[in-house]
């Protein structure tokens, strides 16, 4: 199942991006190649365009309307700019810049709007010229590459590395709690519930203790304690697994309890609401508790019913791998 979800996320993600880009290109959303006449203005008389390693401060007055269908511009807009050798022009975007230029500017992802200028003769304070936008293509595919693939591959490792310290801390604390008999005590108290939820796990198995600690941490909103304890629980549950690589009923039930997590103190939500100036940041606690409790009950019923389905049962039988 995770196979199909993974495939769907990747294929749909890249497919939608590609489709969006191709339709942008065919509609020429970013006005690639369209010529716009303008006047390049200088503060004094100039007689030659900039040479190597030189740039000229100027302003660009665009006095025409952009081609039909692309919206209208005010009669004249004047933007500050810098002219470089070869006719490269950096136009600086400000509040009065019309949306159409702004859109291309945002897609180009530079600090300025990059255009190429051509002129007949370069002489005077005001030089008539024709500009074209630096072409913008495949905005979405580029976003997929940079903001999707490259960034998230890095994020994944950073997340895992960031987990090492907390992981070590909570696994160490957990070991003390285990040796001191605390976990066993907690497990004994909750035994009537846990033996029903996880009938395949012996009541005094270390997996029970770890699962109880994880679920308690989750309820209290202690996320950085919950993950290490949950991973510990999975490790213990895997010791009871008769078929390596396949999830047991207890694992799936535990996971679903985790994902439907009953929240008693949604601390981060309250913090954001307070920061946003809510008159009563904590007013949602009751609703969150009821919503997550009902969700957890329904999720547990669902997971228990699903586990009975023959298709899922069959996967537990010992088989030779093909």
């Amino acid at each position: 199942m995770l196979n199909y979800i993974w495939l769907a996320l990747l294929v749909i993600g890249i497919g939608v991006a590609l489709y969006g880009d191709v339709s942008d290109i065919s509609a020429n959303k970013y006005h690639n190649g369209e010529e716009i006449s303008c006047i390049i203005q200088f503060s004094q008389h100039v007689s030659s365009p900039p040479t190597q390693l030189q740039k000229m401060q100027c302003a660009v007055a665009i006095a025409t309307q952009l081609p039909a269908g692309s919206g209208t511009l005010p009669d004249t807009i004047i933007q500050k700019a810098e002219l470089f050798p070869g006719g490269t022009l950096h136009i600086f975007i400000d509040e009065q810049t019309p949306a159409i230029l702004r859109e291309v500017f945002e897609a180009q992802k530079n600090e300025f709007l990059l255009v190429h200028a051509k002129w007949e003769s370069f002489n005077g304070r005001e030089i008539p010229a024709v500009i074209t936008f630096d072409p913008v293509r495949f905005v979405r595919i580029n976003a997929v590459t940079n903001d999707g693939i490259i960034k998230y591959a890095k994020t994944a490792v950073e997340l895992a590395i960031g987990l090492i310290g907390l992981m070590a801390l909570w696994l160490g604390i957990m070991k003390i709690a285990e040796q001191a008999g605390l976990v066993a005590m907690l497990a004994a108290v909750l035994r009537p519930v846990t033996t029903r939820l996880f009938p395949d796990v012996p009541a005094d198995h270390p997996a029970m203790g770890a699962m109880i600690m994880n679920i308690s941490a989750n309820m209290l909103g202690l996320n950085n304690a919950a993950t290490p304890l949950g991973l510990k629980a999975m490790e213990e549950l895997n010791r009871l697994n008769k078929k390596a690589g396949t999830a047991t009923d207890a694992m799936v039930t535990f996971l679903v309890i985790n994902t439907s997590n009953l929240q008693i103190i949604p601390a981060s939500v309250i913090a954001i609401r307070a920061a946003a100036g809510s008159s009563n940041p904590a007013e949602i606690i009751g609703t969150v508790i009821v919503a997550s409790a009902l969700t957890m009950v329904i999720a547990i019923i669902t997971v228990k019913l699903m586990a009975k389905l023959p298709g899922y049962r069959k996967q537990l039988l010992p088989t030779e791998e093909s």
Partner: protein
Amino acid sequence: MIESLISAIDVLSILAIPALVFFIVAYGAIKKVKIYEVFVEGAKEGFHVAVRIIPYLVAILVAIGVFRAGGAMELLSRLIAPVTNFIGMPPETLPMALIRPLSGSGALGVMSETINTYGADSLIGRMVSVMMGSGETTFYVLAVYFGSVSISKTRHAVAAGIVADIVAILMSVWLTNLIFG
């Protein structure tokens, strides 16, 4: 009354972790556990578990990243908008409902953005708050938990997890409309 409730929650979330550490270590010491040695012994596993989940995290996060960056998320919200309107879910809360199971930091970002745009005390603001509190990053949990014990045949976990996500959203919508609507 409300003020004191908020400050109680504040104090509790500030104290929870130090109190837990203090209590367990002190109790261990009373029970004559060699706390230092035992702690180190347990902590040793931390590194291996964290490293073991890297491939699974990369797989799931990259797929989610591609899905979001390419604009598939917006397309999906447009496609299911008729359904959500029918159940009384404002379209402004749809991005939250979709991102919640995929990305924790993404959901936090969407929540802050929505609340800042529509106000924390608006129905929309309250609804995304409830969604944030009652949902969970299902796919991250699935990838990390199963990854840590190298399980690739997840059986009914994904289906049940998605059911739980949908139920959590429906509950949030229904209860928020009921209580604050």
